[in-house]
């Protein structure tokens, strides 16, 4: 269970339309998300602390957002998710073999995040940065918030009061699918209503 790409039951076929009640994301966050719209995920997969938690993915569309073979290190690829509506701008990036929480691909270095700063909706386009083994988005041009892309978009420094929403990814062969979002997109009342 250490490599999602080899997991048969992670395939799109087995997955149906995001309604499975058990799924194994390699994700390191958990918590008390509302039970009504969650599926099980595995935290710290392959480690002694492995445990199953809930993540909100029910109802989210499954959308092909990139091909692993086409992602180049440190070059974000833009996409919209979970719909084409307002505040759906997001990006997927391969972070140069630096492993990240929620990362997919062989090196677990492929992550996807919303482009909307959760403080006041500032645009984070063109703010992806890599310094040493650190990977961040920011500073936001409005009020300078910066987010840690290795750690589920947690704030490094700044004003936002929640992490940058992370788009949950699944891999099937060379295809990378967006299948859910952790955290609320700026400006929305609910991620799935725009």
């Amino acid at each position, binding site marked *: 269970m250490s490599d999602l790409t080899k997991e048969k039951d992670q395939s799109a076929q087995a997955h149906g339309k995001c309604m499975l009640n058990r799924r194994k994301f390699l994700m390191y966050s958990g918590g008390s998300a509302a039970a009504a719209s969650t599926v099980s995920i595995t935290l710290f997969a392959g480690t002694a602390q492995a445990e199953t938690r809930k993540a*909100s993915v029910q109802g989210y569309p499954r959308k092909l957002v990139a091909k692993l073979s086409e992602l180049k290190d440190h070059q974000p690829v833009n996409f919209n998710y979970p719909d084409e509506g*307002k505040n759906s701008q997001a990006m997927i990036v391969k972070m140069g073999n630096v492993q990240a929480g929620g990362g997919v691909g062989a090196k677990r270095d492929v992550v996807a995040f919303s482009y909307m700063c959760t403080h006041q909706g500032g645009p984070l386009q063109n703010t992806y940065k890599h310094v040493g083994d650190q990977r961040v988005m920011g500073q936001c041009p*409005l009020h300078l918030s910066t987010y840690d892309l290795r750690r589920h978009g*947690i704030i490094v*420094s700044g004003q936002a009061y*929640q992490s940058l929403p992370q788009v949950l990814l699944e891999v099937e062969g060379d295809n990378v699918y967006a299948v859910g979002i952790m955290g*609320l997109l700026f400006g929305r009342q609910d991620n799935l209503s725009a």
Partner: protein
Amino acid sequence: MTIDYYQSKDHAPIPPKDADVMTTACDYCIVACGYKVYRWPANGKDGGMKASENAFGIDFPSNMLQEWVAPSQHNTCTYKGKKHNVVIIPDKDTNFVNTNGDSSIRGGLLAQKCYNKDTKTKDRLKTPLVRINGVLTPMSWDDAIEIAAEVGNHVLQEHGEAAYAIKTFSYQYIENTYAITKYALRHVNTPNFTFHDTPADVTSTPGFRDAGFDNFGPSYDDWGSAETLMICGTDPYETKTVLFTQHIMPGIANGMKVICLNPRETAGIAYIKKMGGLHLDVFPGSDTLVLGAIARIIMQNGWEDSDWIKKWVNSKWESSSGFGQGTRNTPWQWRTTWGKFQTKGYEDYKKWNLKQEEYDPKSAAKKAGIDVKKIYQAAEWLAKPVNGKRPKTSIGIEKGFYWSNNTGNTNAISSLATICGAGGRPGQVVGRFGGHQRGGQKGGGYPRNKSAQKVPGRRRQALDTDRWMYSGHTRFAHVIGTTWIQSMTGSQGLAAKFEELVVKNPNQVKSNNKADIIATLKKRADSGGMVVINQDIYLRDPIGAKFADIVFPAATWGEVDFMRANGERRLRLYQAFSDAPGEAKPDWEIISLLARKMGFDGFDWKTSNEVAEEASRFSRKGRKAFHMVKVAAHIEGKTLHQKMGEMGTDGIQGPTMYNYKTGMLYGTKRLHDTTVGEKQFTAMGLSNGPVKENRYGKKMTHFNSQTGKINLQKHPWSLFGDLWEWLSPKKDELWVSNGRVNEVWQSGFDDVERREYIMQRWPGNWVELHPDDAKKRGIESGDIVMMYSDRVPVFKDTILGVHGKDFQFSELMKNGHIKLDKASISAVVIVTPTTKKGAMYGNFLDMKQPTNSLTIRVPDNISGNYNYKMGVAKIKKIGESEFKKDFRGMSFAPRNIT
């Protein structure tokens, strides 16, 4: 170190159109951004996505900068006994402070502050507690108050006022601080009194006070309208975020040059550098040297503002003038007798500066560990005329600066500012940026003559409550809304003394009989031990959890109407919108119960407004005088709180004036404003001088000295230099400085233990270490380290100074008044170039591992204040934290990535 992992929700309710709307301001940092509270019944209908369906009147999804409710900005609370939804978001309609409805990470999470038994706030204190058999046991208000009053009165009668210590917050709302200080200073009348952030009731900025500058004279507009802004000892982005983003950042965008004097480079400083600013990354405590050198370069080049100096700097006779006033009979009188500070004016200061070897730029740069070119660059930006035109220069300081060399630094900066023409004009100001909000209103005077502490000269010095307690003179410690121990330096030694005097004393309560409890606690005090009572919103460890004999539960922000001002003296009403938990009462009410039981009169208030209205006339001399708001309110048939509430988040800047003819209220944009003219006076109805209850003091248009001019002062390095040289790292020691971070700033009492998101970001104690220092010691980010020292100097005795140098560190050392304590703390290390090589930067107020354990408990020998930022320690790896290899919490990304 473990944390509960938190995942943000992906939905949040929007307030309905008919939600109740109240205004308040953030409870945390000095800036006090304006917020709106939306409240509607828990079983009511939420607002809809269309503008016509919600309280904001906007369509969702909302646009950049519009209203939005993050999941953490919603909570449920109890109001009039019924469950309600609350949404708390920045006020998009406010005209001042957080214009555009900006908010900090702390204020953004205010909704999480509300008491909700289903969240981590469930441990709010709800009933009075009395320690019986070592266990804090619920007790009725009547009994708990009676015990405290009986024992308190006994201590006063048997051991005198000085045995009754009162250590209190200075800021947690005007109503509370007025009641507490009326009790402490006017009725108990004890010299054993101080605020949460000082060992003695002394000024934070002695140099400002002696020069004649108010700490909070400037308006927020001023900080963005200079041409050169010098920022000392803080990154305003970290610690007054919205002042930076809404006022300083636009200034930078308009070409304002910024000079930062700070050992550390955080996000705001990195941004400033990116925009062409200058960073003087000095070693802790070396600021005075650099400032003296900058002043020298300016004077040698003739760049000083001679017109300003001619008009506004005191001559020898002017600085000595005044009968019972001026420098001859102020708290600095005993200092001037030494001739260490007073000058005869500009030429005298210049002569003195040029004579001091340490202000040679090369020598200053070497000691401070910076490139000397930066000193020359700073001097040019601050004062060099360009095309015959002087730059408009402003200077702002904060704790990293004035808690390093309290007197020296604040003297030096006042003189440098004056030479540059800063202070007293729009965009040319001097002030503190500020820490906590300004909610202090004294209800009594400090009884200085009762202090057992005296420095050479005539006057007594405010009593150092730590040293007094440490010497065993305090028999009754009344602690209000502060931890006392962790927030003072040399913390581990202080905790040990509390333990000895309180817990290890044989007189411990073993019966629940009220008379037995009183008798036992009296015996404790009589036997040389100490009784502790504590008022707070949460049980704090150790002051409440370990040491308190009686704990009173306090009501706070959002539960009672309160008034407070921010860093530009802007007063607002912080409206109540939810019930306080259990039987918790506001501190003013707790004090009123206790005072009445002790037999004091004048504590019969029934509402928070009554306390504020009584306090108003005592505010008239102060920078946030709100008396005229009450006058206006009464003329309009309203209460003071009602009138304040009407002004919403815009509030009004103190001091306030009232035009009796037009019925208009006026605030004061800046103090010491030498440009105020006839037009303004006429508008206020004061063209012929103050009218009725209006009071228009000297500080409005002049400086706070006898003449109204500035005292240009010397700043001798020698007063601090012996301590600095002794302390400077030896062998493999590193400097230990400390501070807080944006995410936890003036919010530690809520954030670090209860805010899920903040706990995930900062799950425990931390320290920043420069990559070179880390490599040498085999330390990596995420390692757990121990910082330890056997060189924590503690000034342990209360002494009467006779000779001029008695309080000088080297003399104290020689005469056996300094004890060297050992201390060690652990932390997760963050290896980052944000901290200077050779200097560690630790978390100031970790409750379990306070960096203050390593900092010097030797108060500034002139001011009596602590220099919290000064310490040294060794560091070694003791293991690896869970955060080193997994990604659930914390972040090791440097804060200066731009």
